[in-house]
């Protein structure tokens, strides 16, 4: 395990947040931390609840105002953001939920592309349905379609599968890994197995104020990884143990 702060290499191939500070009132969540996302790779950030992983993701998403000397670099466009809740608007049908971004920005709606994406997530038949008719997994797939529709090369996901059952979660992880190929992804999760299945690089947030550590495991490069793979299972045991120690310290 190595501390990330000293290991940042300035390459044009990464998206970086530097010198990041954040505090709630007087309690410092993190200070002076740097974090980088490798281009076109899935970066997973693990950590116990309340440690500040979502806050870090929100810094990338532009939902938290950065206080100087905090700096964001390597990315100019708007990132696509997918939260823990599907956040589907109940009054819009699946198609219009998928098109929400262009509607909000007053841009022309690309219905053909939306239908194409809905087909990819297997929901083209539900395009005219209202979200209340869908199951939890289907709703999350619409959220994924909406995220893909933003057509951003940076995708930020905040525990997107946390509320799903194990099987639906597994299926959606596979789908996500397939659809987010060649995109820079930050996936915040508290599930070690999820991080190990999907993450090209895995980081852990721990301590008070929090710091970020890269977790190096001998894993296959290709994702999604097989959950029955011995290397994945070994790494899961180690990660769980490490998170357990964090939660008791």
């Amino acid at each position, binding site marked *: 395990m190595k501390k990330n702060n000293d290991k940042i290499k300035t390459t044009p191939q990464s998206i970086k947040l530097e010198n990041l500070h954040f505090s709630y009132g007087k309690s410092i969540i993190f200070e002076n931390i740097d974090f980088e996302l490798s281009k076109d790779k899935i970066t997973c950030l693990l950590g116990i609840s309340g440690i500040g992983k979502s806050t870090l993701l929100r810094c990338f998403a*532009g939902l938290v105002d950065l206080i100087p000397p905090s700096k964001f670099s390597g990315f100019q466009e708007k990132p696509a*953001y997918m*939260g823990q809740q599907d*956040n589907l608007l109940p009054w819009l049908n699946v198609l219009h939920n998928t098109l929400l971004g262009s509607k909000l920005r*007053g841009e022309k709606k690309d219905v053909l592309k939306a239908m194409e994406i809905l087909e990819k997530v297997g929901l083209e038949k539900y395009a005219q349905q209202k979200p209340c008719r869908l199951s939890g997994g289907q709703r999350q797939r619409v959220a994924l379609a909406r995220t893909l529709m933003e057509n951003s090369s940076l995708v930020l996901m905040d525990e997107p599968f946390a509320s799903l059952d194990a099987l639906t979660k597994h299926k959606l992880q596979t789908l996500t890994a397939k659809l987010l190929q060649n995109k820079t992804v930050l996936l915040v999760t508290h599930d070690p197995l999820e991080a190990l299945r999907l993450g090209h690089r895995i980081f852990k947030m721990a301590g008070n104020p929090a710091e970020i550590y890269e977790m190096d495991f001998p894993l296959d490069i290709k994702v999604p990884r097989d959950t029955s793979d011995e290397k994945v299972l070994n790494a899961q045991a180690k990660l769980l143990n490490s998170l357990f120690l964090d939660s008791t310290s």
Partner: protein
Amino acid sequence: MIFLRILLSIFILIIIWQCIVSITNVPHYILPSPLRVLESCWENYSILLQNLGVTVLEIILGLILGISFGFISALSLIWFRTIRRWLLPLLVISQAIPVFAIAPLLVLWFGYGIASKVAMATLIIYFPVAATLYDGLRRTDIGWLELAKSMRASKLSILIHIRLPAAMPAMSSGLRVAAAVAPIGAVVGEWVGSSAGLGYLMLHANGRMQTDLMFASLLVLAIVALIIYFSIDFIMRRTITWQPESLLTDYKENK
């Protein structure tokens, strides 16, 4: 089924009413029989219609004005911080003054004509609409707002596409209350001083011991109030189809 049940209960009430009149032999100027009220409706239908038109006009104008002002106020409250700071306490304090108490004042200011009644109805409709819409606009799901913000939506776009539709269920409750109180506003205005309208007709009939005509006016007013309420309820149900009605489904399931 529900309508049949409502009709049946009304029918039973009318029977009880008729029984009371027949048994106690109470004079018709104290309590007219249901039949006599219907007769009065038939005999005086042109007077009733004429006065009904005035009251309905007052109610509809009051609804339009009250809902518009309520809408504008709620939007300003949510949009402008300064207005929120100054207007919100005033709005709450203004509700401590009973609208009925200022009815004579309204008649003094706006005259005996339709204007004072419209003002009265507007005042009584305004607050439930403004309060519920403001409340709805304020309670927008944080997740939706953050999603919209991450999509680089402007403040106006968020208001139109997220906050307003999200506030519709809350506002529809306000509109239903408004629909229910609108006739009260108009009729109280007419009681204080007027020369036309169902409220005026009731006072007039009461003063001349024409209790049957008074009951007839009351019946017409009740029907109008119901029509207004159910129309607004119908429109709201049609507009807000995504709002779950758990109460109704529970009711059906239990049967």
